[in-house]
């Protein structure tokens, strides 16, 4: 190694030249795992959130109470555990636990998505529950007064409004997940942080290698935050509406 760089920027350029393939690979894995985990986690979060928002009334019969009560308890336990432990610990327990206890050989990549989705689901469920509870009781009474049952009411009225309320939070969760996937290097997921370890280790240039990584993370979060702002603006809908046959309007 005769022509190794001597300056900070020299090292950065050198590392990018040498390892850009690695960095791209890591970037891709980070995006794939966080995106898949967030989307699946949102579905889980909605499911768990709906279960938790369903109130069991005193006048319901015993069978209904049990049918509603068991999922409620399971949901509560799940949310408590996953909100109460760090994701890095969950990663270890799930990854090594699945192979030693259940004999399932999860690939790190699949394990990563699984862990993110469980983690996201737990946090999303609380957001969804809060969103559902924040819907004006008048919306529910309006639906009831039309003779609408619980399921159509949820599908047509409550959930669309909840989704609109919590959409920014879903975006924030995705951005947070992009960063949080870095802890999954402990189970050898070849995401951005894990790949940087390789790039940094060869020449032992920690500072330069991780500066590149930091810039990539920053670019990603800025990019997606901007994108989310646009989506939010789009979802807010038009301010004006079209009046048909204005002459007839009173």
């Amino acid at each position, binding site marked *: 190694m005769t022509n190794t760089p001597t300056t900070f920027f020299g090292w950065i350029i050198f590392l990018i030249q040498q390892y850009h393939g690695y960095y791209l690979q890591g970037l891709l894995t980070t995006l794939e795992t966080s995106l898949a985990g967030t989307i699946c986690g949102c579905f889980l979060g909605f499911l768990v959130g709906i279960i938790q928002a369903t109130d069991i009334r005193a*006048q319901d019969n015993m069978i209904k109470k049990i049918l509603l009560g068991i999922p409620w308890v399971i949901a509560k336990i799940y949310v408590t555990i996953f909100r109460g432990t760090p994701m890095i610990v969950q990663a270890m327990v799930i990854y090594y636990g699945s192979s030693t206890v259940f004999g399932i050989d999860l690939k790190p990549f699949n394990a990563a998505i699984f862990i993110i989705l469980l983690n996201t689901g737990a946090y999303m469920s609380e957001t969804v529950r809060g969103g559902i509870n924040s819907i*004006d009781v*008048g*919306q529910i*009474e*309006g*639906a*009831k*007064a*039309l*003779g*609408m*049952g*619980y399921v*159509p009411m949820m599908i*047509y*009225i409550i959930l*669309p*409004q909840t989704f*609109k309320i919590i959409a920014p939070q879903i975006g924030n969760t995705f951005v947070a997940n992009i960063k949080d996937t870095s802890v999954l290097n402990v189970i050898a997921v070849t995401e951005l942080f894990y790949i940087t370890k390789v790039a940094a280790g060869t020449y032992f240039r920690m500072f330069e290698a991780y500066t590149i990584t930091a810039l990539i993370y920053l670019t990603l979060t800025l990019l997606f935050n901007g994108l989310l702002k646009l989506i939010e603006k789009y979802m807010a*809908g038009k301010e004006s*509406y*079209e*009046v*048909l*046959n*204005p002459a*007839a*309007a*009173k």
Partner: protein
Amino acid sequence: MARQSIFKFNERVTTEAKDATYEFRGPVISVRNLEKKFGEHEVLKDISFDLFEGDVVCIIGSSGSGKSTLLRCINHLETPTSGQILYHGYPLTKDAQTINRFRSQVGMVFQQFNLFNNMTVFDNCMAGVHKVKKRSKEYSTEICMKYLEKVGMAPYVKAKPHQLSGGMKQRVAIARALAMEPEVLLFDEPTSALDPEMVGEVLSVMKQLANEGLTMVIVTHEMAFARDVSTRTIFMDKGYIVEDAPPQELFNNPKEARTREFLSRFMQG
């Protein structure tokens, strides 16, 4: 037994030849010894009355007299503590299916409009007739436009509720309830959240409906409207029905001292 009977009635009233087959002339809705408690607080005490086809019943009384609670008990938005609601002579059972069937026959208009915020004016109307009653899209569209036109809101089908004024929202809410083609329409203080100018536009729609013979129960503070439009006026106080009489009688010659006291304030004005 009771449940089957209600379904049969539903089929009958939704047939085209309603008048030809309609023989039952008993009350559409009967309230029998209705009581409602919120904890220890007794809001309704032993309420009984009958509602016949074509009746326009206005319920008046001071705030906290139980008017709204009575209305909400009729379509089970509040579960009565005891007593019965009879629909065409059959007691309503408490299972969700029966209550939903009943609610689709007995529409309700709220003080706070309760239009669905995520839907346009048109979709609000469609929600009942298309999604609940499962009528075809063509039929639903036709009937929604018919009633939106009737309340003068047809040009605004593409607007969302938050873009409309209070009076417009209430007229849409009335159209939404009418699109269900209900036998009875319940109004829970429909003009109390509106400014005086908007009150007029909503009341004129309601007046028109009354003239067309729609069976209505209206909880209101609009005394002049109650006097001019209702066929029967009920005065409630402290959870009891104090007086139930035709409006001419109740307003001009009230029998009970409490009614006189309540009306004296209005009559002075």
